[in-house]
C-alpha cells in the first residue's frame, strides 16, 4: 500500500515538475521573441523556420485531413440524415452536424492528425539535435533555443491547425454531403439551410479558440520532450512517445474543460 502511495506521490510530483518546466519554456520562448523582435536581427531566419513549420504541419497534412474529413463527414451526415427522420428529428439534422463536426470532431481530429505528424516530428527532430550536440552548438553561438527553435514551432503549429480545422469543417460538411448524396434524399439547399440555422458565431469562435490552444499545447509539449533528450539516441523514440501521449491527454482534457465551461 505504501509503495502504491509512494508511486502515486512521485508521479504527481513529476507531473508538477514537468508542468512547471513546460510553462517556463513557453514563457521564455515568448519573452525571448518579444525582446528580440525589437532588434530585428535574425527575424528573417526565424520567419524561414516558421514558414517551414506551417508548410510541414499545414500544407503537407492536407491530403490526410481531406480523406479523414470526407469519410467522417459522410458517416456523420449519413447517420444523422437517415436516423433522425425515423424519430421525427429532421429539424435537428443541422444541429447535430454543427455539434459533432464543428464543435467537437473538427478541432479534435485535426489535433490528433497534427500530433501524429508534427508533434512526433518536432520531438524527434529536437531529440536528435540534442543527441548530436546541435542544441549546445546553437547555445554556444549565442542563438536562443527558445527564439530560434521553439517559438516558430508554436506559432507555425497554431496557424497551421487553425487553417486545417476550418478546412476540415468545410470538407466534412460539403464533401461529406456529396459522398452521402448517393443514398440521401435531402436536397442540398435544405441541408445547408438547416446547418446555417444551427450555426452561430460562438460555435465558430470556440472551435477556433480550441484549435489555437491545441496548436500551442502540441508544439510546446513536443518541444519540451524533445529537448529533454540528453545523450543517448534510444531516448529519442521514448521522448517522441511521451510527447504524443501527453499531447493527446492534455488536448482531450482541455477539450472537455471547454465543453463543460461553455456548453453545460
Amino acid at each position, binding site marked *: 500500500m505504501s509503495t502504491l502511495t509512494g508511486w502515486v506521490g512521485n508521479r504527481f510530483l513529476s507531473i508538477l515538475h514537468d508542468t512547471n518546466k513546460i510553462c517556463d519554456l513557453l514563457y521564455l520562448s515568448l519573452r525571448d521573441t518579444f525582446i528580440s523582435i525589437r532588434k530585428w536581427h535574425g527575424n528573417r531566419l526565424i520567419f524561414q523556420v516558421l514558414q517551414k513549420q506551417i508548410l510541414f504541419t499545414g500544407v503537407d497534412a492536407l491530403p490526410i485531413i481531406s480523406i479523414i474529413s470526407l469519410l467522417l463527414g459522410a458517416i456523420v451526415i449519413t447517420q444523422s440524415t437517415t436516423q433522425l427522420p425515423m424519430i421525427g428529428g429532421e429539424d435537428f439534422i443541422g444541429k447535430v452536424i454543427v455539434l459533432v463536426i464543428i464543435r467537437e470532431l473538427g478541432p479534435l481530429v485535426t489535433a490528433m492528425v497534427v500530433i501524429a505528424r508534427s508533434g512526433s516530428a518536432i520531438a524527434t527532430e529536437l531529440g*536528435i539535435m540534442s543527441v548530436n550536440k546541435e542544441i549546445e552548438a546553437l547555445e*554556444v553561438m*549565442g542563438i536562443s533555443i527558445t527564439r530560434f527553435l521553439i517559438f516558430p514551432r508554436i506559432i507555425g503549429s497554431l496557424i497551421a491547425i487553425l487553417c486545417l480545422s476550418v478546412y476540415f469543417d468545410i470538407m466534412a460538411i460539403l464533401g461529406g454531403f456529396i459522398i452521402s448524396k448517393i443514398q440521401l434524399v435531402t436536397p442540398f439547399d435544405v441541408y445547408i439551410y438547416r446547418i446555417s440555422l444551427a450555426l452561430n458565431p460562438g460555435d465558430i469562435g470556440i472551435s477556433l479558440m480550441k484549435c489555437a490552444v491545441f496548436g500551442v499545447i502540441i508544439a510546446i509539449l513536443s518541444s519540451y520532450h524533445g529537448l529533454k533528450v540528453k545523450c543517448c539516441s534510444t531516448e529519442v523514440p521514448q521522448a517522441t512517445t511521451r510527447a504524443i501521449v501527453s499531447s493527446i491527454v492534455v488536448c482531450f482534457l482541455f477539450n472537455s474543460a471547454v465543453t463543460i465551461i461553455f456548453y453545460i
Partner: protein
Amino acid sequence: MEQSSITLSIENVTFGFNGKELFKGIDLRVFQGEIFAIVGTSGSGTSTFLKLCVGLLKPWQGVIGINGIDITTVSFQQLNKIRLRIGFVFQDGGLISNMTLLDNVALPLRYHTALHEEAVMGIAERRLSLVEISGYEEYFPAQLSMECKTRAGLARALVLDPNLIFYDEPTAGLDEDKSDSLLRLIKRLRDESGVTSVVVSHDMDFAARTADRIAVIEDGRMKMVRGRVKGEG
C-alpha cells in the same frame, strides 16, 4: 605575446555531477594570442571543462572570466552577447544536420547581424575558403568526412571574428597528416588574426606540437606540463 591581456581567466572553479566532485579549485589564465592545450585522459572531464568555460554549465563555485567579464554572474542575454566573441569547435563540428555547409557557416551572421544576404554569403564563402574546404558549400554534414566537418565547424566559429576559440578534441578520428594540417591552420589563425585558442585533446603529441602552454587535468586538478598555470604575467 601580450601577457597583460587576459582572454580567459578561471579562479578556484569547482564543479561536479550528482554531488560528485569532478574539478577541485581549478585556476587558469589564458592570454591574448596564445594557444593553450588542455590534455586529459578519457573521462577526466576535459570536454566538461570547455562547457564550463562557455557557460553551458555553471560551476559550483569560482569565477570564469571571458574578456574581463565573469560569465557565472551575468544574465542569459548578456551571456549570449559575450558568446559572440567566442568560437567553439565541437569534436565532429557540431553542425546543424539539416543545413548545408554554407547555411551552417552563415547561420550566426543571419541570426546576429542585419547584413544583406549577399554580404552574408560572401563572408561565409571566405571563411570556408580560409579553412580550405571551398567546393563543399552545398553538401550536408552527413555527406562529409570528419576532417571536413571539423573544418566547417571552425569556419562557423570564425564567422563573427571571435578573439577566443575553444576546440574540443579537434583531431579525434583524424590521421597524422590531417592533424598536422589542422595544427597549421590553428597556428595560422593565431599568427594572422591574433586569435586565442584553447585546445582540448587526448593526444599529448598533438598538444606538444600545437600549444604555447600545456596543462593536464588529472584527479580533478589542473597541472602544468609546459609553462605555469597560475600567476602568469
